[in-house]
């Protein structure tokens, strides 16, 4: 056998092996790359798996949102929603979303909490309109945004934080994420933070310290049953979400839309469902009025509006089981007892918060009502709500004053 032939034979064998080896290697490399970039995968599916002892440090890890071309859009299945009357949070606008795992359902409830499946993610992104002459990204406008859609413009808005409520093993976990100045990602901040914001269009405050809550403060509101201490969503209740939303597909009632997506269990559209007052109705009225007497809202509507306002701003603590049950003041919408709503009710442990006034609500006299005094305060030892705001909500004070001034009757 010539050495040359022998070599050729060996060459072809080597060639085959080489090719095979190369192929194997390439498969391996591609696998590696795929696995390596799993975290940063660019598909649109929400990631709801997390370790509650060590939650994701960045909001992007949840893949709830897609950020591109100066816009924030929602990943597949992440649907937006809004409330009839929202909680006042220093005039911040809020972009709320709900996501549930495929083939799961939410147990609907007419009056109280829904039961959500494990894996539910509820998000709330706090943002402000950027000031027109924004020297810095922290220059914001206090003009409250009421635009509804499935997209959030990053050109005109400054994102502050996104708060998540995620359900795992039948427990809710709360995670606050603070958006960076570049508006690219948000970082987990369980100890909370203070963010200095500069207001361009306020006549009074020019700057304020926006508070990002720490996780215990999350519980301060979200543990509506103070004894159990368990976190729960507050806004997703029938009376708050029974309203329309301007989806990409059209303007639909939110409950009907969720039902059409197959999200709800036990939803009966023919039932007379509770519905809190739409805040925009009052706000537009209030902003165009300068004197309480000229508010063109009838008594019943005014009461509905005021009770709706108290419901969403106060009732998470001021309910018979909440953190403020020591006060005996129950501001949940379904409370029908005048006394525990506060009419002619003396304070218990309000301390300085009472402002020297005798009753929570003095009918016909808003200026001598403790509720108005406290809502109209920004002193941390006096103000109500105690948590969740730094600024005074002028329109809210206005509403409550109008309502109380119109109440009949006297105390004692």
């Amino acid at each position, binding site marked *: 056998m010539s050495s040359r032939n022998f070599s050729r034979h060996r060459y072809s064998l080597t060639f085959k092996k080489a090719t095979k080896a190369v192929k194997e*290697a390439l498969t391996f490399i591609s696998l590696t790359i795929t696995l390596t970039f799993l975290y940063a995968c660019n598909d649109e599916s929400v990631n709801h798996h997390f370790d509650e002892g060590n939650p994701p440090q960045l909001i992007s890890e949840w893949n709830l949102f897609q950020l591109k071309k100066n816009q924030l859009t929602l990943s597949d299945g992440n649907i937006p929603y809004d409330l009839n009357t929202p909680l006042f949070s220093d005039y911040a606008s809020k972009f709320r979303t709900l996501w549930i795992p495929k083939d799961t359902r939410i147990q609907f409830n007419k009056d109280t909490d829904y039961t959500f499946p494990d894996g539910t993610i509820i998000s709330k992104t706090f943002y402000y309109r950027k000031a027109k002459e924004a020297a810095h990204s922290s220059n914001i406008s206090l003009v409250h945004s009421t635009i509804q859609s499935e997209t959030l413009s990053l050109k005109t808005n400054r994102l502050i934080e996104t708060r998540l409520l995620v359900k795992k093993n039948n427990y809710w976990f709360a995670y606050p994420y603070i958006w960076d100045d570049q508006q690219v990602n948000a970082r987990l901040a369980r100890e909370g933070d203070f963010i200095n914001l500069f207001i361009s269009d306020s006549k009074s405050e020019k700057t304020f310290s926006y508070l990002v809550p720490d996780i215990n403060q999350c519980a*301060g509101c979200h543990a509506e049953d103070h004894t159990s201490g368990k976190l729960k969503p507050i806004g997703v209740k029938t009376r708050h979400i029974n309203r329309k939303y301007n989806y990409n597909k059209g303007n639909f009632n939110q409950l009907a839309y969720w039902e059409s997506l197959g999200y709800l269990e036990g939803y009966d559209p023919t039932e007379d469902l509770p519905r809190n007052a739409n805040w925009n109705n009052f706000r537009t009225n209030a902003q165009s009025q300068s004197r309480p007497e000229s508010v063109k809202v009838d008594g019943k509507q005014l009461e509905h509006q005021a009770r709706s306002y108290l419901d969403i701003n106060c009732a998470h603590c001021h309910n018979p089981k909440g953190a403020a*049950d020591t006060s005996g003041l129950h501001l949940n919408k379904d409370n029908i007892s005048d006394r525990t709503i506060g009419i002619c009710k*003396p304070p218990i*442990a309000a301390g300085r918060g009472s402002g020297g006034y*005798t009753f929570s609500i003095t009918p016909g006299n808003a200026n001598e009502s403790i509720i108005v005094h406290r809502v109209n305060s920004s002193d*941390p030892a006096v103000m109500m709500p*105690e948590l969740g705001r730094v600024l005074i909500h002028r329109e809210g004070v206005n509403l409550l004053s109008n309502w109380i001034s119109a109440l009949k009757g006297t105390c004692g």
Partner: protein
Amino acid sequence: MYKVSIAERLFQTAPRSSHLKAHKLKSFVQHPKYLVLSYQIKYRAALMLKPISITFLLVIIIAFFIYDIKPTQNPSIANGTELSKQISKQFLFAKKGDVIIIPEGHFEFMRSLSLRVSGVTVKGAGRDKTILSFKHQKQGAEGIIATGSNLIFEDFSVEDALGDGIKVNECNNLTMRRLRVEWTRGPHKKNGAYGLYPVQCENVLVEDTLVRAASDAGIYVGQSKNVIVRNNRAEFNVAGIEIENTIGADVFNNTAVNNTGGILIFNMPDLPQLGYATRIFSNTIKDNNTANFGANGTPVASIPAGSGIVINSNDLVEIFDNDIANNQTANVIISSYFSTGYAKDISPHQNFDPYPETIYIYNNRFSGGGDAPDHLELKALKIAEFGFRGRLPDILWDGIVNPSKSHEGLLSSQYAICIDNPKSGIVNVDAGNNYSNIRKDLADHACHHPKLSPITLTL
């Protein structure tokens, strides 16, 4: 051998001459030996790629794990702010069974420290060594706010909270000991309301604490059960110690001095729990003559300066073996809800009993006091009944009684105010009848009540 090193092969076939033309390079590249070699190189490279990929993969996986592991907390001790943040985090991420040790030092906080876990102990290095200051507090109505069972707070102080010093809400088995809660500027209307504030708790022990300058009550126990408040010092508060709507409390061996009112036992309406059964004994209650700096409209703001012990709308109160002296309005005041000045609504509330009943005062050592009462009507009363240089008696009672439990203004024996105290006096001002029948006769109160049982805690 067939297996020759690649390098050798390379060097063997590589042209030595540097002036090779392109075609020679081309032919070189197409030379079978070179081809073999290139395949060999590729093959070997390919062979190496597999372990390289594996290694790469492993490195990535390991990196993720390392990245995901929580870094051990090693704060730089140099900076006080760092430590404050560290302390905040310890509260925030506390787990059952944790002992949060706060070292000696002065720590500033911008927001409340909150605890929502049971089974936690917070321990400082001593109440004059570990100081938590909330002077620059931006948010939160308390210094420390906690909820949970089996909690212990000891050996540190809380200064200048915007609101209450330490509030513990809904707890079973709470111990607060060797603490100091103070508003360092002294009595001021804008000080926080309560120094130590357990509310809706069961099995509570407050001992060896010092509370100063609270604008409501230094130690306030509300809507709780089974409480011991002992060996504390309360001074320069509006109310030194207050027990409100609480069932079963022993308040003893405390010193309440220089407050507006020394020790208060109150019941307020519209609350889920009404209180009764309190023993106040072996306390020193003196010189509680500080002007009232409580917030307008609060119940405590109605207390006249110079009150030793004040009982309001509460039943089954036993007062004995105390040293009560020099409280310029009265050493003991007993009143109903109607005398509070904040009860504009006198309609009967469900379950609320506005009358103080079954009060037993015995074997106390009274001296001085009553000589410069606060409130215009009490001044007038003193002058009218006891003269310019006189003094109001040790015990002052508004005399408003439940008609169904009394006869001609005198309470039936089981509800009576019984006084068995040598060298004391009483004035019943008959406030319910426009002060028309003022009585000062101790004989009205010569009775006894069965003694209350001591509180035993099951901490």
